[in-house]
C-alpha cells in the first residue's frame, strides 16, 4: 500500500491544483468566448431557477391565461401590450414567462437524464472492460441492443408502453419521467464504449500486471488510472450529451411524445411556434428557439474549453 498512497495524494493534489492553478483561470479569462458562454449559462440557469420571482404570471396555470390576449407581438411592434414584453403565444401566455418556465423543465430533464446516463455508462464501461469475458460480452451486447433504439425510438416505445399499461393517464403526468428515462437509457452506451475501450488498453499495460502480481486490488488501481485518462472523452461526451439531451427533448416534443402544451418545455414552445412561422407571428418560435440555441451553444463552448483545459495531454 505504501507506494500507492503518495501517488494518490499527488493525483488528487494535482487535480485540485490544476483547478486552482492560475493557468486555468488565465485560460478561462483569456478566452472572451468562454467567459461569455459562462455568463450566458449562468444567466439562463438563474432565470430558470428564479422564474417565479422574475415574472408575475404562471404560464402553467390555465386560469390566468386569456385567449383574447393571444398572438400579441413583442413590445417594440405596434399592437403590443406592455404586460407582455416578448409578446404572447397562441393561447395568450406571456412568452417570457413561458420561456423561463420552459427552460426550467428542459434543464431539469436534460440534467437528470445525462447525469444518470453518465453514472450508468461509466460504471458499465469499467466493469465490461476490466472483468471481460461473459460479463463484457453481455454488457456490450446489451449496448448493441440499446443502440438499435436511438433516443427517439426509445421514447416512442416507452411512451407507448406507459400509456398501454396506465390507461387514461395524461401526457402531463408521464412525459417528464418518460423523457428522463429515455435519455438515460439511450445515452449511456457511448460512455460505456469509450470507457471500455480505454480500460481494455490500460488492462494490458505493465503496471496493471505488476499490480496484479503484487496482489493489489488491481481494479482499484485501474480505476484510478483509467478514470483520469477517460475524463477528457467523458467530459466531451457529457457536453455533447447535455446539448443533445436538450435537443432530444425538443425533438420529442416536436414529434408529440414530449411535454404537452399545457406544461410547455422549450421544445414544446418551438413546436407550437413553428406553426405560426408563415403567418407572420415569428416571435412565438424565434424567442424559444434563440433561448434553446443559446443554451446549447453556451454549454458546448464551456465543454470545449473544459476539454482543452482539463486534458493533461494537451498541457
Amino acid at each position, binding site marked *: 500500500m505504501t507506494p500507492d498512497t503518495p501517488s494518490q495524494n499527488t493525483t488528487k493534489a494535482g487535480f485540485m491544483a490544476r483547478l486552482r492553478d492560475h493557468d486555468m483561470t488565465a485560460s478561462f479569462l483569456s478566452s472572451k468566448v468562454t467567459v461569455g458562454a459562462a455568463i450566458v449559462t449562468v444567466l439562463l440557469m438563474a432565470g430558470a431557477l428564479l422564474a417565479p420571482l422574475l415574472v408575475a404570471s404562471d404560464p402553467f*396555470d*390555465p*386560469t390566468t*391565461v*386569456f*385567449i*383574447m390576449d*393571444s*398572438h400579441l407581438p413583442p413590445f417594440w411592434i405596434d399592437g403590443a401590450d406592455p404586460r407582455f414584453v416578448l409578446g404572447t403565444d*397562441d*393561447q*395568450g401566455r406571456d412568452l417570457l414567462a413561458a420561456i423561463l418556465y420552459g427552460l426550467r423543465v428542459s434543464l431539469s430533464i436534460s440534467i437528470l437524464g445525462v447525469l444518470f446516463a453518465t453514472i450508468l455508462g461509466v460504471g458499465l464501461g469499467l466493469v465490461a472492460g476490466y472483468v471481460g469475458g461473459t460479463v463484457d460480452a453481455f454488457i456490450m451486447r446489451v449496448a448493441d441492443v440499446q443502440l438499435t433504439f436511438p433516443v427517439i425510438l426509445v421514447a416512442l416505445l416507452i411512451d407507448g408502453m406507459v*400509456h398501454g399499461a396506465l*390507461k*387514461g*393517464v*395524461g*401526457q*402531463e403526468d408521464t412525459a417528464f419521467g418518460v423523457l428522463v428515462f429515455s435519455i438515460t437509457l439511450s445515452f449511456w452506451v457511448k460512455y460505456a464504449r469509450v470507457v471500455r475501450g480505454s480500460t481494455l488498453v490500460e488492462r494490458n499495460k505493465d503496471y496493471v500486471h505488476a499490480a496484479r502480481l503484487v496482489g493489489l486490488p488491481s481494479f482499484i488501481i485501474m480505476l484510478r488510472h483509467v478514470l483520469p485518462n477517460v475524463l477528457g472523452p467523458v467530459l466531451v461526451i457529457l457536453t455533447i450529451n447535455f446539448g443533445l439531451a436538450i435537443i432530444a427533448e425538443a425533438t420529442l416534443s416536436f414529434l*408529440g411524445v414530449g411535454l*404537452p*402544451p*399545457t406544461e410547455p418545455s422549450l421544445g414544446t414552445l418551438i413546436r407550437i411556434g*413553428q*406553426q*405560426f*412561422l*408563415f*403567418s*407572420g*407571428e415569428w416571435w412565438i418560435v424565434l424567442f424559444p428557439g434563440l433561448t434553446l440555441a443559446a443554451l446549447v451553444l453556451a454549454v458546448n463552448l464551456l465543454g470545449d474549453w473544459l476539454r482543452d483545459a482539463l486534458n493533461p495531454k494537451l498541457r
Partner: protein
Amino acid sequence: MKKVLLTCCAALLLSLGNSYAKTLRLAYQGDLKSLDPYSVSETFALSMAGASYEGLVRRGENFAMEPALAESWEIIDPKHWRFHLRKGVTFHNGAPFTADDVLFSAERVRADGSDLKYRIPKEAEFIKIDDHTVDVMLPEANPILHYQWAGWYIMSKSWAEEHDAATPSPANADTPSYAALHENGTGPFMVESHQPGVKTVWKPFAAWWDKPKHNLDEVVLTTVSSDPTRVAALLSGQVDWIAPVPEQDIERINASGNAQVLQSPDLRTMYLGFDQVSDTLKYANVEGKNPFKDARVRRAVYQAIDIDGIIAKILRGAATPAALMIAPQLVNQTEEFKRFPYDPEMSKKLLAKAGYPDGFQVQLDCSNDRYPNDERVCQAVVGMLGRVGIKTTLNAQPKAKYFAKILSSGGYDTSFFMLGWSPAVLDSVDLFTNVLGCRDDKGNGGTMNVGGYCNPKIEELREQIRVETDKEKRDALIRQAWQISMVEDVAYAPLYQGGLAWGVAKNVHVKQRADGDIVFQTATID
C-alpha cells in the same frame, strides 16, 4: 452505363413531356390508405374513390341528388324501389356494367370488413329484373334511402372475383387485398399508380360515359402531413392544391399572389361530450358522484366557454358557433335554436345550485391530429373552465390512441371529451341514431354516443322521424327532438361548425362542396 444513360434520357424526356400536359398536383394532410371503396368510411378516402368509382346516384354541383349509374328510379311503394341502370357504361377494364354488378356490390358493401355496411339495411333485398333493371325491397320505408348511396360505389363483379377480392377484407389477415391496391370503376379517372401513403397518380378514362368537366391530363396526389411544409409546397409552386390549410396561414397564402384560399362552412360539428353513465366520475375528485349527470353542470360547462374568443383567436374566424349537433343548413328553421350565452357568472351559479360551489376536478380527452387546431381549442377550454372552478387537466393524444381510449373498443373510457361529427346521411336522424341514441356498454345502439346520454323521448321521436314521409311533419318532429336533447337536456355542449379551407394556385379552378369532398374531376387548369 449505357442503360443508365438511356433511362436518364428517357426520364428527362418524360419530365419534359409532363410539363406540357395539364397535371394537377394535390397535397393532402393524410394518407390514402386503400383504394377499396368500402374499406374506410372516411370523407377523404371516399372522395378519392369517387374519382374512379361511381354510385347509382351522385351529388351534383349544387349538392342535389342526380342520376349517375342509374338513369332513373321510381318508388313503386315505400318499401319497393326500382332502379333503371344506364346502358353502354363500361368499367375501366372494358367489362360492361350490368345489374349483376349492382347485386354484387350490394352484397360486398355489407360483407365482412366493409366499413360502409350502414349504407344499405341488412335485410334489404336486391332483385335483378333484367340486365339493366334492379328492384330493391326494403324491410321498412325509407324516403331518403338514396341519400346514402352517392357514396356507395359500384364495383365490377367479374373483376373482383377474378382477383379474389369478393369481400373488402381479405380471406385472412396475411393476404394482400387486391382491391386495396388496384382500381376498376366506371368513373372519369383511372388510377395509373398507387403507392400507399406516398403518391397516387390518376389519368382520365377516355371511354367515360359522361362529358368530363375537367381539362386535366393527369392528377398526382401526395401526402404532406406537416402543416408548414404543406403550406410551403403551395407557396413555392410545387403543388397546385393543398388541403387543409391551417387557419393561421390563410392570410399569408392569400397575400402571396400565386395562390388563394377557398373557404366555406364545413358540415362537421365540433362538440364537448360528458360521461352521463358512470356513478362515480372517472379521472375526477368526486367520490361517489357524477356531476355530469346533472344537466345544470353540463350547462355550466357550456356557458363557461367563450366560443367567440376561440373562433376569433384560434380558428381565425374560419368557423361559426354551433347551437345544435348538426350543421344549420341541414335542418329547417334552425334560427329558433340559439346558443346559451357565454356567461361565467351564470356558470358559477349553476355549479353552486348543483352542489359544487367550489367546482371539481376532471380530465378532458382530446385528439391532437384529427381536427384542425383541435389541441389548441381543448387547451383554451381548459383555461375557461378553470376560471369557473372546474379544474381540468388535458389529455391530448394522437387520434390512434385517442379513439382507442374513448370509443366503444376502449369501453368508452372517458369522462369528458371533444369530438367532431359530420352526418354521413346529411340528416338529423343520423345524429339521433349514432350520437344521441341510447346505447349499452358494448356500444350497441348509438355507437358514437360516447357519453351514454339516453332519453326515451328521443328514441320514440327518432322512430317516428324515420318513417314519416310528410316533409313538414318530419321537420317538426326533428325540431322537437333537438329542443329536448339540446335545450332541455343539454346532452352535449356544441362548440362550432368547422370551416373548410383549401389552398389553390391561382391558375387552378376547383369547386368546394359543403361535405368537404375533394372533387378533382371538376377541376380545371388555365
